[in-house]
């Protein structure tokens, strides 16, 4: 009897621990929808610029560019004034969306496949792959639930995290230059991108 009571208690504790935990399938659904929408835009009617604008919208729908920017900026970003931070986040949004799309657009008529999602605490890692006739390319999405919707707080392409990649790039840049110079570089790069869309 005692043993049975313990079992019930354990079951209750386990059940309670699942309340509020992430639903991996919901995260997978968001990634699927995003990639499917991107595919639809790429295959649909419209000029190249119109398609890119639509794709930017699709990308912004899933990417939490602020969180990615925060990670990429690291401690240097935290030490900046709110104005500089605001400008950094705005510029980073352009950079990261462009970076994400550049990876996606490399493939013509891509086929997407999905692997079993992995639950890591509050984070769900949704593994996707771009399948071509000759190879497969892995793109994992680090998904978190924010304000009732699933967003990607990082994208891991072929094992390399986009946020970590930018963190390394920015850290190396900031070793020899100031944060203002980094902002200036981002301004110039994003201006060029805006002038010559993709």
């Amino acid at each position, binding site marked *: 009897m005692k043993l049975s009571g313990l079992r019930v208690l354990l079951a209750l504790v386990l059940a309670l621990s699942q309340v509020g935990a992430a639903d991996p399938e919901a995260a997978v659904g968001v990634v699927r929808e995003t990639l499917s929408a991107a595919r639809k835009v790429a295959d649909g009617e419209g000029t190249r610029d119109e398609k890119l604008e639509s794709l930017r919208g699709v990308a912004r729908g899933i990417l939490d560019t602020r969180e990615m920017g925060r990670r990429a900026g690291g401690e240097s970003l935290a030490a900046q004034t709110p104005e500089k931070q605001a400008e950094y986040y705005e510029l980073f949004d352009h*950079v990261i969306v*462009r*970076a994400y799309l550049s990876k996606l*657009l*490399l493939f013509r008529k891509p086929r997407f496949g999905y692997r079993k999602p992995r639950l890591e605490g509050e984070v769900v890692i949704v593994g996707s792959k771009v399948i071509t006739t000759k*190879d497969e390319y892995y793109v994992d999405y680090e998904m978190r639930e924010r304000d009732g919707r699933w967003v990607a707080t990082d994208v891991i392409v*072929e094992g*390399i995290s986009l946020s970590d990649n930018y963190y390394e790039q920015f850290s190396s840049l900031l070793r020899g230059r100031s944060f203002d110079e980094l902002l200036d570089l*981002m301004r110039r790069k994003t201006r060029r991108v805006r002038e010559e869309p993709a």
Partner: protein
Amino acid sequence: MSALLTIARKDLKLIARDRAAMVFLVLVPLVVVTVLAKSLAGSDTGSLLLPVVNEDQGPVAEVLIEALSEHADVVEVDRARAEALVGEDKVAPAALVVPERTTKRYLASRPSTLLLLTDPAKGAAVGAVKAYLLLADRRAAEIADPLFEELLVMEERNLTGSRASIPPSEQNVPGFSIMFVMMGVLFGVAFGLHDEQAWGAITRLRTAPIPRWSFLGGKLLARFLVGIVQLVLLFVYGYVAFDLSLGSAPAALALIMVAVVFCMTGFSLLVAAFARTREQVIPLGLTVVMIFCALGGCWWPLYHMPPWLQQVAQLSFATWAMEGFHDVILRERDLLGVLPAIGVLFAYGALCLGAGARLYRFDTA
């Protein structure tokens, strides 16, 4: 005044009597202008062969190949074939190797090194390939991450020698040396034989117990030796004045020189046999010298010409002479490596010598 007109009328009659000379007078500029125009038009034909070794098999390689195909004839081959097309067959100035995992590294914003295997003997064409690669790289950059540059790095490897670039003098010195030695040997042989006939020396020799071949052989040997000395002097001058490389195989260079002048000597006898009069020697000689040099790559690299003209150029011994010199000087090949060119030159010369000896008429003065 009337005397002046009479003399002019008489000279015109003399010139008109030599119809062959008249034909050459009109034909020379027409033929030379046509060959020059066609040769120089070749650089815009976009007929450059560019082998690509696609080890990546991913979309980055596809984008590069697509962009390069707009400017060159891109063929996808394996590494061994690419090296053969550049190094042994010498039909492509360069080959591009897109290594494995280029797309994966590109996606991960990690740089990849593309390998450009080159034949610096085709310097200008290699330059064109590099320009095409820059254009292709720009195409790839259009879809690249804006903060990560230089994701595709180029490494150049000389497949045919040890030097990365070739100065223009190493094309010009052998080319113009061939032209001047050819002029010297050809006019020397042709004028010499016609002068001997005019002076009646041949008629006298025919009565003497001297075989025909030793008369011709003696005259040709003298011109051959003069040609060798002239060619050696020009190369020594090029070495001293223009830092011309003489390659790493002196025996190969020496044998190529001998083969080239031997071929020129045989060819000169053939031209002398065709020129019936002394007056015909200059237009006929100039025609063949100019056409053979233009076609043979003495004035500009052979690969500047359209492919069909490059095929026609194989009929000019100057093409084989230039190829032989390039093999020794620019590609640093040894004797074994230049044997094909040497073989062709000796065979060409022997054929011309035989045909010239058969066609040359001792009794026409």
